[in-house]
């Protein structure tokens, strides 16, 4: 355990040293040194502009993700519960999963303009398909043996729904929300870089046009860090909620 920590730290230091050496010898505006980036990061974290940009970004994330969850989960569960309905919807959702969502951004602009609503819509479109598809799969694949067991104990259709089908689909719903949040985060970044310069993405663009490479790197570092922390928190929360499972289903 301790040995591996030393190894990890060693490799990290080595990488940083290599970066510093290359940056120093390259002597270019485009590749900042480690120390420049660190001080840019410190400046960034101290500035009010950064925190308000962060808030602006997360408004869209929250708006889009929450609405994707509120619409995607019930819809997915319904598609799974009525397979004949699901059969008609599934091909559409699968295409939405595979085709790059960013390409419909011109449509989003026409519908919602350049606004918080538009950014929220992009986030929504990123998160919705995976949330709905996963909930649908969880509902569809409800264990037939458990349903029969419940029937043998005289469960009514409503009891089957609340006591067997929904609890059985719950792990899939959570997995879908986790995957959906990851995609929503992507959608947030895409919205700010491709749709309109706003929030953190806007800040990034501004630093880039100022040729402030160190600050560009600092913003990227913040975004990467936040996504790592966010995914870790969500994974832990999921495991807590699924204490009865050895590990979450649907990797």
């Amino acid at each position, binding site marked *: 355990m301790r040995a591996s920590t030393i190894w990890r730290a060693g490799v990290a230091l080595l990488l940083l040293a290599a970066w510093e050496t290359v940056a120093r010898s390259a002597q270019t505006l*485009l590749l900042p040194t480690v120390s420049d980036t660190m001080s840019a990061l410190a400046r960034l974290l101290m500035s009010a502009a950064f925190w308000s940009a962060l808030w602006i970004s997360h408004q869209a994330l929250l708006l889009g993700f929450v609405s994707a969850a509120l619409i995607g989960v019930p819809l997915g569960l319904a598609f799974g519960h009525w397979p004949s309905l699901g059969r008609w919807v599934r091909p559409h959702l699968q295409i939405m999963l595979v085709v790059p969502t960013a390409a419909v951004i011109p449509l989003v602009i026409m519908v919602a303009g350049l606004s918080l609503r538009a950014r929220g819509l992009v986030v929504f479109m990123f998160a919705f398909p995976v949330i709905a598809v996963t909930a649908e799969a969880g509902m569809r694949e409800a264990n037939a043996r458990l349903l029969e067991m419940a029937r043998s104990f005289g469960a009514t259709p409503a009891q089957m729904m609340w006591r067997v089908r929904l609890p059985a689909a719950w792990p899939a719903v959570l997995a879908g929300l986790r995957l959906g949040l990851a995609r929503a985060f992507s959608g947030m970044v895409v919205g700010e870089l491709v749709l309109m310069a706003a929030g953190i993405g806007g800040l990034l663009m501004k630093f880039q046009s100022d040729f402030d490479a160190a600050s560009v790197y600092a913003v990227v570092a913040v975004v990467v860090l936040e996504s790592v922390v966010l995914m870790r928190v969500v994974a832990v929360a999921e495991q807590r909620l699924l204490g009865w499972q050895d590990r979450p289903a649907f990797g």
Partner: protein
Amino acid sequence: MDTPEIAAQGHAVSRLAPLGVTLVLWEGLARLLAQPAFPPFSAVLSALVTLVAEGRIFGDLISSISALALGFGLAMAVGVTVGALMGAFPQVEEVLGPYLNAGLAAPALIYVPILFTLAGTSRWTQVFTVFLYSVFSIASYTVAGMHGTSRTVTEMARAFGATRRQTLLLVVWPGARPMLMSGLRIAMAMAVKGMINGEMLIASTGLGALVRVYGSRFEIDKVLAILLVIAIVALSSTSGLRLVERRALGDALQP
């Protein structure tokens, strides 16, 4: 009984029928509403025909696909190699694990401004965008595949006197390949997204750039026509991989 093709065709038809109905609904509703943001499907098709007839789209298609092929090929080489090393040597996994996790968690588009500062609008920006979108998935599926080989099987190999190297080459690696193949499919979908997103953000050529150009002129029928092309690229590249997978899950996929 011996008609799996017909069965598969029937399956494909029943899978495509819902899409057909949607297209018909789309056409009808769009004609009814007559909104500029919502052109009928026939208008999109005729826009596509015009784009193809003008020939402009081919240059962008080729530019996109070559960036996709180059970036994905590179991601495959690096992802499979690094993933295999991580799967084979726990020490390597210890050290590289955090970077892989970060790469999986962070939206890859965030790196594009940095790529832009390094490579400008050259093709390498697009290639590396595709690379960054897909390489982490490939590596992580490779690792997962190698860990997926059950302990009993590796212990069986040891019991039969296999060396560590033999166990890796003859047991663990072949066992990892199905998982690796499905990882490649998922990564391919990511790569196509990287291709489009990267082009939409900075490129001057490529399908994504076309979307941006027509989008800024609000020529929605053309935007949707290109989206159709993108969908075809996305679906055929993933199903092309599936084809390769079926053919080559014998021996052809050594790194």
